[in-house]
């Protein structure tokens, strides 16, 4: 009797999460996969099977292919740049110096407000007209005419990535900092006694002990980069042309605004596969790297 009551109680505890799982994951995922093989428009009663046509279109349509390309560029370059900057920053922020707490907070803070609002604010900062402080400073100092930060393809991509680096580096530095603080100080003391230089200590103590942190940080950066929407959308609306279009933006435009549910679902499924592959590849590489150091 008691056993039975406890079993009933356990099911009651698990019921809400099971509901969330079914309603917000399992059913929608199954629908995404199903729609991706049809021409469903979101309104009609019927949907026709179209085979892999939607998947083929994802690679040939210029807006969707543009969004796939830019999302990849964004994910890879933000991951690389932020990692390269965040690790030395964390090492410096781990030292004792006057104003350390201020510097830590200032670097960390840009990750706290909404990325959408930061994107909108930066559109004004990078504007070629009167409000664009970057251009007016460049003009005053170097006499360079207005730079089209957001209206040239390459520059717009670089601007989006630049703002993302500005917003994300401090956050990831704090992540590395947490791992650095767990490295015992004795390691460095022993190394100093043995006459190791600080470059040697960084290479042989700090970096190997930071590999778990690197796994986590780069995984967050890569998956976050693939999922990105707010920042490019508010900064450039995906333009000029499709230069800074993201996969998420394509899914929303196709599936909700234009009623091409089948097409959007194919993109969503492709997206899911890419994210899944990236996570698996990352875990595989991380295991090998960590295995080499331990």
């Amino acid at each position, binding site marked *: 009797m008691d056993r039975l009551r406890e079993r009933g109680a356990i099911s009651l505890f698990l019921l809400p999460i099971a509901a969330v799982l079914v309603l917000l994951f399992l*059913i929608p995922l199954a629908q*995404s996969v199903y729609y991706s093989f049809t021409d469903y428009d979101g309104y009609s009663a019927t949907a026709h099977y179209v085979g892999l046509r939607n998947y083929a279109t994802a690679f040939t349509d210029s807006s969707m292919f543009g969004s796939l390309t830019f999302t990849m560029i964004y994910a890879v370059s933000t991951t690389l740049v932020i990692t390269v900057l965040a690790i030395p920053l964390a090492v410096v922020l781990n030292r004792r110096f006057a104003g350390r707490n201020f510097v830590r907070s200032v670097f*960390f803070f840009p990750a706290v*407000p909404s990325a*959408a609002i930061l994107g909108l604010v930066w559109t004004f900062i990078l504007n070629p007209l009167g409000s664009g402080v970057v251009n007016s400073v460049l003009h005053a100092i170097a006499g360079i005419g207005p730079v089209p930060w957001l209206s040239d393809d390459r520059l717009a991509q670089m601007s989006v990535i630049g703002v993302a680096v500005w917003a994300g580096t401090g956050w990831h530095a704090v*992540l590395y900092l947490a791992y650095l603080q767990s490295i015992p100080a004795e390691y460095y003391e022993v190394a100093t006694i043995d006459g190791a230089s600080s470059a040697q200590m960084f290479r042989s103590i700090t970096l190997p002990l930071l590999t778990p942190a690197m796994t986590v940080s780069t995984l967050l950066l890569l998956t976050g980069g693939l*999922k990105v929407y707010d920042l490019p*959308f508010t900064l450039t609306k995906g333009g000029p042309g499709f230069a800074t279009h993201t996969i998420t933006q394509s899914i929303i435009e196709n599936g909700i605004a234009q009623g091409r549910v089948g097409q959007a679902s194919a993109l*969503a499924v492709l997206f899911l596969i890419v994210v899944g592959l990236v996570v698996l590849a990352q875990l595989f590489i991380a295991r090998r790297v960590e295995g080499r150091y331990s």
Partner: protein
Amino acid sequence: MKPRRGIATSLVMVPLGCLIAVPFYYIVVNTFKTQAQTTQSPLGLPQRPYFGNYSAVFHNTPLVTSFLNTLYVTALSIAVMLIVGSMAAFGIILSKGWLTKGLGVVLIVAFLVPGQSTLIPVYQMLVKVHLVDSLTGLVFVYSAGAIFCYFLIVGYMRTVPSEIIEAARIDGAGPFRIFWSLMLPLIRPILVTVGVFQTMWVWNDFITPNVFISSPGKQTLVLQVYTAIGQFTTDWPAFITLSVIVLTPTVIFFILMQRHIVSGLVKGSIK
């Protein structure tokens, strides 16, 4: 030797920190200028602070409504996430059956599924049950965050000695008593950490309200700022004033919760 090195670091890092903060200085200082003054000296301090932008923004935008909408959605979503997540964690801890083990695996997979790949079907589901363009609908969408909460909470719950639960059981307490009066108080630290972390997500989120909300009266703060950009295209000091007003609660939250934000970031990343 040591203190001198500290000074050198300060001399490099403090100016660098200030450089990172320039965009924030820029937007705050320009809210106190007229448009002509900002064009003239974008980075200078105003001779006499001008408050016209603030009164214009409070006059022209339904800030209080959007603030209350955001507060309502955030508070309710976080409550739902934490309750669902901790109930699930407790259920998983109590049971030893293979079915619940399977559920645990499914939850890991679901955790890795990006919201984008379920967005369109969820949207259509909400259209069918008339929850599109409703704040309750937003709360429903955010309840998916319960899975992330579950992971952090279950990790913490495993550190609670099982003898405590056993002792309560022997004293005759049922599972619900144990959950409410014993477990929840014990796991308070993780609830605060996860709550703070998820608050930042819901409060700042743009994609969900942008997709699901269309009535001006149901906008959240972030969406309000986004729609205002059309309204203020020419009057951009008014626009940044709105941004600064909307960012203020975030700054206060950051100052009060910095410790929890950092610990949430570290714990969340280890999962």
